[in-house]
């Protein structure tokens, strides 16, 4: 096939023009890509910071949750152990009190009860052991009578007005009950708590 220089020239021209335009397009796309990437870097950094900060917050939250829960569980166990020890001391003390002789206290307990009720005309009850002691002490309180029925208590007396409308419980049990919160504090302080 014979060569056609004009045709070859035209083809060369078209090829070179197309190549130039392709190179230009490639350069502009490259620049555009670089710009997009450059623009994204600060956004990426922001997003990165946000993820790190959220992660830290979440970690803090979980740490607080775990530490808080563990602290509380430990503290609650300590409270239960302390209460058990206080109860044991209390039970021992009550056993000793019930075995003790309260006869010396009887008169002052009766005196306190009649003064509180504002009259000596009362009906007095006590436990089986103290019955005779209380009965003999009643002679000092005009109008006071002994109840025929005994009550269950560690010691002390219950005084009731004759019409039955007022009662004053001055048993050892009631007195301990009134003082129990203070006694608990006292016992706990012996274990080194609440000092």
């Amino acid at each position: 096939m014979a060569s056609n220089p004009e045709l070859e020239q035209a083809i060369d021209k078209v090829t070179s023009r197309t190549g130039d335009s392709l190179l230009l397009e490639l350069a502009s796309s490259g620049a555009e890509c670089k710009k997009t990437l450059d623009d994204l870097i600060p956004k990426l950094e922001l997003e990165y910071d946000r993820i790190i900060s959220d992660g830290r917050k979440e970690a803090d939250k979980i740490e607080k949750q775990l530490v808080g829960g563990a602290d509380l569980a430990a503290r609650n166990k300590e409270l239960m152990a302390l209460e058990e020890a206080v109860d044991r001391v209390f039970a021992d003390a009550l056993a000793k009190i019930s075995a003790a002789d309260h006869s010396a206290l009887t008169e002052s307990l009766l005196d306190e009860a009649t003064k509180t009720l504002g009259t000596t005309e009362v009906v007095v009850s006590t436990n089986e052991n103290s019955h005779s002691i209380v009965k003999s002490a009643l002679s000092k309180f005009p109008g006071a009578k002994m109840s025929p029925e005994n009550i269950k208590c560690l010691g002390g007396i219950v005084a009731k007005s004759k019409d039955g409308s007022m009662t004053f419980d001055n048993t050892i049990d009631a007195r301990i009950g009134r003082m129990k919160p203070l006694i608990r504090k006292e016992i706990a302080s012996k274990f080194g708590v609440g000092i």
Partner: protein
Amino acid sequence: MGGVQYSKIAEIKGPLVIVDDVENAAFDELVEVETSEGEKRLGKVLEVGNGKAIVQVFEGTTGLSISGTKAKFVGKVMEMPVSKEVLGRVFDGLGRPKDGLPDPIADKFIDINGEPMNPEQREYPKDFIQTGVSVIDGMITLVRGQKLPIFSGSGMSHNLLAAQIARQASVVGTGDDFAVVFAAIGVQYSEAEYFRRSLEESGALKRSVLFLNTADDPAIERIITPRVALTVAEYLAFELGMHVLVILTDMTNYAEALREISAAREEVPGRKGYPGYLYTDLSTVYERAGKLNGRKGSVTQVPILSMPSDDITHPIPDLTGYITEGQVVLGRDLFRKGVYPPINILMSLSRLMKDGIGEGSTRADHSEVSNQVYDAYSRAQEVRALAGIVGKAGLTEIDLKYMDVGDAFENEFLTQATDSNRTIEETLEILWDIVSKLPKNEITKIKDKYIDQYYKGK
């Protein structure tokens, strides 16, 4: 000396027991009421005279009979045993343990009615408390020692907000101890359980004390619940030097209980049947907040009350507003739109905010950026109303910008997840994002130096 038990009951009327032939009883004296079955309930003396004592029974009088009931006058007022051990504990509305643990070993026994603070000894509250809730920290700032109520309505998300504040609240920039005392007054069981679980799961329970009076507990107990809670708060604050945030929800239930007693006592009713002394009584609760000169701790109160029929003129919010230092109002419209927390800032105000923000506590531009956003949101509301009449097409370009600001305020600033704890810096950044939606010439409340430093618009 107390301890006398009386068995002559003259009358049982509503929550009241009237005891006859009583001598030496004292006003407010604690009374142990014993039923014929031996069950013991607590009460207190409301009135004494002519040999009679009127006793208000906290646990109600259901099941009591005139013949079998006995009333023992204990000889002292009601006291709450307090010690540092109460932190992390859950109590009922009368201050009895509800978490299966024993009574706290008391350091002190304190009269639950508290002692009034000497006004001369009060220190002006001015230190910022970060709640982590943007709208409160940024625009209705809470300061230590303030009493800032939340006015809500039936069914709105005040309990979610209360629990979020309790979980997240902290004092910024100091190593001082912080505690939350939470008193739930007449709330549903599920709500009480939500509060407990929410504090437990966030690890905040160990620095909190919960007092839970649920809806099925006797209504009269509700008179006592805020008082025992405040007694503990005062002890933690003024004896142990902690900063204490007290959340009382729902004070409406407290006022209802007060009305019940007043009706039973046949007192002359005031507005809507509430007693004439409602204001005085509420002040005995709300005034137990503040700071004392020379003492490290503080008691800050956030009482929550639901306004019947969303009526802000109802006696409870009305009288509360007279006593407290501002209010946070929840808006029904925002709630319906699904915005959480639905705080209507245009009706809300923290009177002490100006003293708790700015350089040295939050940031120097805080007050100005907050004012600018307040102003812009107010304008946005006007524009929205106008758009409702003339349509969006009839609005000017600047009106449309204000509408955008209104939307951004509600969607980006106000709206916050219940577990999102934003720092004050984050909050101020969002406020600047909103301000930056306006052209610079519309920013009239912020100094140029702050605009140059923080404005993000073009």
